[in-house]
């Protein structure tokens, strides 16, 4: 696989504050790479360095083999960007914006407006658009001129749930056509639905890299099953079932913790005489959000030794 983006030893300070602290990662062609982390972790600054919007204080970086510090104007023609904080002139109309930032071809502009459900708004001024409409316009502008790499910073901010899933589908299509996508997000469901690989940032450093499944396997809490048992039920029997690590009782509800294999035997064990299980039975699978919370609330992650360990365990992700 061709490497499209590489960063090594990237550092950016704002005065005393180190926003990005000696980070490195690679993104290969045709993947959706997620940069995750809490607010202020340095995600946006990292992407802004790669976009050529900010100059890092030190470090090596290449996008499509070019250095954004010196080849900015050549790169801008090959890269699309949706920024977290930007705007268009209030009195600019939607169709004027698409023609201005596009290559001037009216038909491709029309197609893009159709794809992003903006056709009915073509004569509307930017100031009159809702938050969700603006966001769809910015995504459309990022995809103009068939870029090889697209950066999305908070892709679905301001979108309702239906629009979010539409956008996810469209971004998957973009990747399937071979475009490389870098996605900055703090929505874990979004990262899990879209990203092929992710990097987790905390206090300016990358603390973990891998596929969402790898991160969940390494860091997420176990599978849990919770239910209110029938009156005659003896919870002690559950502890002996395969995959169960522990059983606890809180008021009426029983919580069984363990790995994925526990689900079938536990559910079978709690079936009543009528062959129906407890109506409030819930199964929670570990997800990326659990993994991220474990990662960023783990104070040991600040220690360089752990970061080194992480880098060693994911040689393809961190160089």
């Amino acid at each position: 696989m061709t490497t499209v983006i590489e960063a090594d030893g990237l550092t950016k300070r704002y005065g005393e504050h180190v926003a990005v602290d000696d980070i490195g990662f690679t993104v290969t062609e045709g993947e959706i790479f997620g940069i995750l982390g809490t607010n202020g972790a340095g995600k946006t600054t990292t992407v802004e360095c790669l976009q050529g919007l900010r100059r890092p204080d030190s470090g090596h970086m290449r996008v499509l083999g070019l250095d954004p510090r010196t080849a900015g104007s050549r790169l801008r023609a090959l890269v699309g960007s949706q920024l977290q904080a930007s705007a268009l002139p209030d009195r600019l109309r939607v169709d004027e914006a698409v023609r201005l930032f596009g290559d001037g071809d009216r038909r491709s502009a029309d197609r893009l407006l159709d794809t992003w459900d903006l056709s009915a708004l073509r004569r509307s001024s930017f100031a009159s658009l809702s938050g969700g409409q603006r966001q769809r316009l910015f995504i459309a502008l990022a995809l103009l001129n068939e870029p090889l790499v697209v950066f999305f910073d908070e892709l679905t901010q301001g979108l309702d749930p239906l629009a979010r899933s539409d956008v996810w589908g469209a971004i998957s299509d973009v990747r399937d056509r071979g475009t490389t996508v870098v996605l900055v997000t703090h929505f874990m469901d979004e990262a899990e639905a879209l990203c092929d690989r992710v990097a987790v940032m905390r206090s300016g450093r990358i603390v973990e890299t891998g596929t969402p499944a790898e991160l969940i396997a390494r860091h997420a809490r176990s599978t849990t099953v919770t239910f209110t048992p029938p009156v005659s039920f003896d919870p002690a029997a559950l502890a002996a079932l395969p995959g169960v690590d522990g059983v606890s009782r809180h008021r009426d509800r029983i919580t069984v913790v363990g790995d994925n294999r526990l689900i079938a035997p536990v559910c079978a064990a709690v079936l009543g005489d009528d062959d129906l299980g407890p109506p409030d039975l819930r199964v929670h699978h570990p997800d990326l959000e659990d993994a991220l919370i474990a990662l960023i609330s783990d104070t040991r992650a600040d220690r360089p030794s752990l970061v080194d360990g992480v880098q060693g365990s994911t040689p393809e992700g961190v160089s």
Partner: protein
Amino acid sequence: MRSLLRLAGTEMKLFLREPMVLTFVFAFPVLTVLILGGVFDEDDPAFEGALPSDYYVAAYIGVVIAAIGLVMLPVHLASYRERGVIRRFDVSHFPRWALPAAWIGVAMVITVVAVAVLLVTGYLVYGLPEPHNLAGVVAGTLLGAFAFISLGIALGMALPSARSAQGLGILLFFPFFLLGGAGPPPEAMGEPMSTISELVPLTHAVRSVQEPWLDLGSPTVHMAVLAAIAVLATAGWVKLSRAAT
């Protein structure tokens, strides 16, 4: 090249959709023509032998130049910076210099159009004097416009918000307007005000047009001041736009 023309065309439309621009650049100078041309006695000695309406022709042009450089451009640019429009351009296929280049081009065109509107109005109402040195008048107008456009871009880059640009722009515009040639002639002012008016940059733009038009003297010193303003302001905005990252 075509995309640059498209950018300039779009910026032109956006300027002309701005009520503030229409008011200050087109309506206000026309009102000035109509008022100043008729307010003085025809044989007032303060006008160095020229008719008052003739004497003020250059001042009308100065009003347009000041409105574009002190109000239109700073407000437009500061609002772009404040709201993140410039960031959006920074990640587009346009080179970094495209937006300032479009502003200079568009502002020059707006200057020419607004000056033409003014001169036609002045001609129809009061008549216009024959320019003594037409090439000098054109050169003075273009140099004055360029100096004030550069100043306007520098102000727009330096000021933190559209509101502060509007406040400072109007605060500068009126003293420049009154002391820079559109107010009473220097001979009619007291000594201190006359000295202050020499320090107002707009005075030099107005003089650079007035002297070749009415054959009042050599505009070389005034044009040198304008050139210095243009160079300093251009260096200033180039530095400010680089410091942004």
